[in-house]
């Protein structure tokens, strides 16, 4: 396509709406929480273990509704397994199309489900002090390898939903390559906010509050950068108004509102100077309301992207 030529869209909308928006939201939180939990366990210190376990709990609980939402969205829900198994007569067998994000995503979701469930049970067993034999292999290098692979899958689950939208011919979605990154950054920021809320309710995990707070700010900055890229990529195809026009601008405002507190704290922490002239590394503590706003923003971002191209 020649630069600045407007894209022609003559497609129909797939009606991916009320099941898909919460799925995208929860997939972001499940993947992001698993990643944070793994970072805390592998690169944190002993104080971070309680927060890591909280992360695995959150990932599992956020993951649970995902397959249900996806199945309910199908117009033939009982055929959900056709995603994995081709039932074409004379051509029956496993289904995997590397070029179809929905096909790759189906396999990734099933695999991630295994990782997230084992990590949840492992965290629960350790918290409850259960002496389970199956836990022993997860103590050493195998356990570390397990959560690293799970975290890679978590990163994929949090971001592939954006690629799935882009691999279409729909206005807005197909006019950009930034959605995968945008959803991932937003999922990470939302997961940090979710865990920051949860650690407040578990005294033993509060030592990780600083990491979660700072990471939420950094990931919000990454999300903002990708939002700008997303908007810029829509300009040549003339679909900026479709995505950001009324009424979607209201959702975007909520998404921005979720970003702003974290970004503001990032700026003020950088700019604050002590009487000795040193930059203050210790940021101000965010309130619970701020984190709820971040989560609302993560949901609003997905709703704006998904709905603006279809309704």
């Amino acid at each position, binding site marked *: 396509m020649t630069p600045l030529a407007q894209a022609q869209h003559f497609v129909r909308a797939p009606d991916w709406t009320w099941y898909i928006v919460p799925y995208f939201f929860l997939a972001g939180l499940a993947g992001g929480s698993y990643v944070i939990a793994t970072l805390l366990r592998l690169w944190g210190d002993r104080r971070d273990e309680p927060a890591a376990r909280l992360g695995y709990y959150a990932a599992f609980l956020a993951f649970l509704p995902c397959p249900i939402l996806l199945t309910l969205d199908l117009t033939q*829900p009982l055929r959900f397994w056709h995603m994995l198994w081709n039932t074409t007569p004379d051509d029956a067998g496993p289904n995997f199309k590397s070029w179809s994000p929905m096909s790759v995503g189906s396999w990734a979701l099933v695999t991630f489900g295994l990782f997230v469930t084992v990590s949840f049970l492992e965290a629960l067993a350790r918290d409850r002090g259960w002496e389970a034999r199956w836990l022993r292999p997860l103590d050493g290098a195998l356990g570390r390898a397990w959560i690293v692979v799970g975290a890679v899958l978590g990163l994929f689950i949090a971001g592939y939903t954006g690629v799935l939208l882009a691999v279409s011919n729909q206005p807005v979605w197909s006019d950009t390559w930034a959605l995968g990154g945008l959803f991932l950054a937003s999922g990470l920021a939302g997961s940090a906010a979710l865990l920051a809320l949860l650690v407040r309710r578990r005294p033993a995990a509060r030592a990780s509050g600083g990491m979660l707070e700072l990471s939420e700010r950094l990931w919000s900055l990454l999300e903002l950068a990708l939002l700008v890229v997303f908007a810029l990529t829509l300009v040549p195809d003339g679909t900026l108004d479709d995505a950001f026009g009324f009424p979607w601008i209201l959702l975007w405002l909520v998404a921005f509102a979720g970003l702003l507190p974290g970004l503001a704290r990032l700026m003020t922490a950088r700019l604050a100077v002590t009487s000795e002239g040193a930059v203050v590394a210790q940021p101000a503590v965010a309130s619970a309301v701020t984190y709820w706003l971040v989560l609302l923003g993560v949901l609003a971002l997905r709703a704006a992207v998904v709905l603006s191209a279809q309704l």
Partner: protein
Amino acid sequence: MTEIVPGQAYGFFTDTSVCIGCKACEVACKQWNMLAGHEPTFGDGYDNTGSLDEQNWRYVQFIDNVPDETMGTGQGKAWLMMSDVCKHCQHASCMDVCPTGAIIRTEFDTVYIQPDVCNGCRDCIAACPYGVIGVDEHTNVAQKCTLCYDRLQGGMEPACAKACPTDSIQFGPLQELQARADQRLADLHAQGVTEANLYGRDTAVYGGLNAFFLLMDKPEAYKLPNAANAVLPGRNNPGGYLAGLVTAVLGVLGGLIALRRRGQPPPQERSHDTEAVEP
């Protein structure tokens, strides 16, 4: 009549220059395929079908080009009429994205949705650049023109081509249709109808269309993407995943930076932090 042989490519050549907008194709299609159709809508034109979808596998477009000023030269070009249909693309976007393998290329080189395999994920609807596919509310699966797969298997030409009174819709072996279309285009150009053009005859649009058209205006006028815009959904796979990968690397890096630079927990929280947990 043409003998229909499995293993040979078949298609439609729709010559819009002789379409009279009678909609016999729409009726024949619905009758043969037992499509209930939608309630008709009545606007200020002759179009009460609306669009191609799960019920309308043929759709006669009436494109109003009537000028505001008094008619003079150009009379006869006031309306563009075209019987639109699934294009049975060689590079089919719907088939590319379908995660279940429900969309297949048949022994007649047509694109077919297997109703017993489709699970209604609707990825094909998001991908089809022609807005052809819809989900039927009775069968709950994605539906579109089958190029009368069942009739072909029985050695019969598709219902719409059979019913078309002006031969605007022609069915046959693809190579034969292409040769016929080339001749028709040459005749029209020789008669001074220079705006006539073939859409989907060559590989410029989705690798070639088994249902291709002779148009009397630019493709965009008929709501057909031109060659520059006829792009496959998969084009966004590399960019999309690359953006995700770069974000993943930056995200993990951000997490590690946060772990190193988090400082001490706030004093009021540190006082509660007494529980030691074994890793």
